[in-house]
């Protein structure tokens, strides 16, 4: 795994962590560690996620009813809690994604006006 220099890592925009978690869970249920690894892999280690900060976010998503959880056993026989995307979570992800895209388009438009 290619390690990037810490200076190149991007701090997460507030609230975007929720979206990333939901997105990760789209591939199927997994545990906290799996989510952390997925985010790092997908962003090619560009996004800095402190693993500990996933858990409050997971608690929040669970409270909102966007993910559900149950205990399971991981590949190497480790007892772990598996999180699963609910249908409400799926809808939320869709809404969040389209909002995010609009947001990015708008910012990009400002920063790089039609060349």
């Amino acid at each position, binding site marked *: 795994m290619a390690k990037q220099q810490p200076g190149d890592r991007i701090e997460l925009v507030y609230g975007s962590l929720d979206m990333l978690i939901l997105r990760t869970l789209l591939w199927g249920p997994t545990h906290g560690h799996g989510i952390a690894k997925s985010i790092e892999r997908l962003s090619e280690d560009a996004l800095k996620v402190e693993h500990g900060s996933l858990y*409050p976010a997971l608690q929040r998503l669970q409270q909102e009813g966007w993910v559900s959880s149950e205990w399971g056993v991981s590949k190497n026989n480790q007892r772990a809690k598996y999180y699963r995307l609910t249908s409400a979570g799926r809808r939320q992800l869709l809404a969040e994604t389209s909002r995010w895209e609009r947001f990015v388009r708008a910012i990009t438009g400002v920063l790089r006006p039609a060349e």
Partner: protein
Amino acid sequence: MGWKRQIVKFWGLFGRRRRARELREEFSSHLAMEEQENLESGMTPEEAHYAALRQFGNVTLAQERSRQIWGWNSLETLLQDVRYGLRQLRRSPGFTAVAVLTLALGIGANTAIFSLIDAAMLRMLPVVKPGDLLQVKTLIPRRPGEPSGAFTNPLWEQVRGQQDVFSDVFAWGEANSRGDLINFDLTQGGLVRSAHGVWVSGEFFGALGLRPAAGRLIAPSDDRRGCRDVAVLSYGFWQEHYGGEERAIGASLLLGGHPFDVIGVAPAGFYGMEAGEKFDVAVPICSTATFDEKESRLDDRSWWWLQIAGRIKPEISRAQVSARLKVLSPGIFIAALPQDWARDGQRDFLKRTLMAVPAGTGVSEYGLREQFGRPLDVLMAVVGVVLLIACADIASLMLARAVSRHKEIAVRQALGASRMRLVRQLLTECIMLSSAGALLGVLFARWGTALLVRYISTARNTVFLDLSPDSRILAFTIAMAVLTGTLFGVLPALRSTRVSLTSAMKGTQAIEIGPSRRFRTRQWIITSQVALSFVLLVAAGLLSRSFAKLATLDIGFDRSNVLLVSTDLNAAKVAPDRQPALDESIETSLRALPGVVAVGRSFRTPMEGGAWSQLITTEWSKGLTADEAETWLNAVSPGYFAALRMPLLAGRSFTSVDTATSPRVAIVNQTLGVRFFPGQNPIGKGFRIRQPSGEWGPPIEVVGLIKDAKYEWVSEDTHPTAFFPITQVPARTARQTFELRTAIPPSALVPPVQSAVGSVDKGISLEMLTLAAQVNDSMVQERLLALLSGFFGGLALLLAMIGLYGTLSYLVNQRQTEFGVRMALGAQPGSILRLVMRDVIAVLAAGELVGTGFSLATTGLLQEMLFRLGARDTATIAIAIGVLSAVALLAGYLPAHRATKVDPMVALRYE
């Protein structure tokens, strides 16, 4: 959605333990997986472990954040803070005890005074919709000041018949020794056991919406001319005298010798309409006919014995009520015009107008609110200042404690507690302290208010206040606890959380904050304490000096060793023409008692409250205003002046030659002589009295001049006073007072007097009181103020000195090393002493300066309560400066002296 989430959060509270456990398990499994991965990528086991931890970040923080999401975190932190606070307070029991006790005194005093204000002024009557009640009053032209609340029965009947603004209107009149000439005497002769009665109109209980506790209440049908004598008992009276039994209904109750049928009991908690009074028995207005034999007050147009109130109709405003009553006034007053009044008086009478004032809290016709309103306000301010000083003391203590807790706080900050979190924790501790103080304070207050009410009650006037705690007092106390906790907590909390971590951890004590800066805050606190206690000392000094002047004033008669014996012949059913003879025989039998030196007899006695006055005129008094020409009167026996030791300055005293048929004579006091006979010798000259009809009566010859004496109050400007022979004035009532000058303690005479009067007629009822007690009772307000302001002034001084002593001791401890070095270098103890005392004197001087300015600015408020003393009296301020300086120097000297005892070696070894 919102409430659903709240429910989820609420349930979350219960599953917390399980969830926290699960969370920990998740964390450890996460870390294990990461560690495993790290191992696989080739790290050493140790590296793998720490890398996983680093990657995870702050475990505690992640836990905290998750818990926050589960909800109701604030409640949890609060519980945590409370638990932590309890542990902290338990760890320093001395500090906790001092703080709680100080606060209990401060908050207790505030709650006590506030309870009195609440009970006397603010409390709503326990009736249906008290806010709808309005009292009807009369604006009297050419008599500025308060409108009068007194009505005659004919006026009441007119108001009842003509008004159209109240859905219910009712009247009542107090019937006790002050309000009425009738005392509801429960006994037949002998020492009086009087009941406090109230006359009520038939509408009274219905209009207030009261339900009987037993039997039935007085209804309109009970209040008709020629009615049956019925009575309703108050709940307390029923409990006390009938044990709360049903058989009381239908029983017969003897009032002033007349039997009344008990028909019911008023509800518990209802004490009547008058502030500071509680009735025992209510009887219908029509029953006055049973007591008034010849002249019935039901038809008397100048007998003012009733008060009127009503319940406002829902659709109209208070302003409309007053406006409408004003319109109705001419019709009402002309229908109840006193026919025997002079034309002037009648013309003014017709100009009177009615108005309405709120009566939801009851009324204060006897003036309890007027008499004690201002003193209670002053006391409230005083106890408020005492509490401030107490708060300052505790703030000082907290600051000192902050030093010793320095490390604890640094450690907690190092572990990631935010400053806000620590401030909150410290404030929670403070509020806990103040709440404990408030709790204990409420106990003090209950005891204190009961004591105070007993104190302002006098022999003739028992003050009753319903002191049961209500929501307002509760709210006040809670507010007090939170406010004081915050007040003394905020500054130390902010101060002590401003910590430099490294220096604290190193163990050297916060040198960069430095004792000098810390001391400067405390210096401010001490200075303000000195200033505040100084103001209270000045106030206490003023009120005490004023009272001392009052108490030692020459009041014109000798109050010691005089027993006042009041007799009431009503119950004995003595025919009016037999009364003088009976009085004579009572006087003879009293004079024969061993220990009695002289006996007098009079209509009125000094300072008994109330006055009998008339306008008089002489050849020389034409230029006097009505106020100046008003003369206070009394009718006395020949022995009166000797019994009271009032010296006759010229002429003669009354003798047996002054009879009902001899020429009318009078003895006047010096003030009357100077005012009505300027430059003349009044003896042998005459004056005339204004008759009720408005004409001047026949001339009365002045035969004697007596020394000035006070009549109603000690503090009054002496009134012109005229005394008539008791034989020449027709008695209006069957009540009289005998003055017994005794050679033995007056109280020893009570049993012999009882048997002596009983031997004349067993039916005569008796009341006894010493003249000294009566004079004392007339100064109850002044004495209360002097006593309490003195007490609280002393308390303030004590608290301020505790603050000064504590701070200085702390400072001396802090500077021990410095003193040690100085001594080692050859400083004399005297110079060390001077060094410390310099601080004391600086604080003292600044505090006294500010305090003097403050006193000069505020004590003006006391002026109307002071007797012959300026509110800015320099002597009082000088005394206060002297007392405060002496005590402060002593409080400062003790720690300063200790500073000189520092052993240089010991101090230096510390470093």
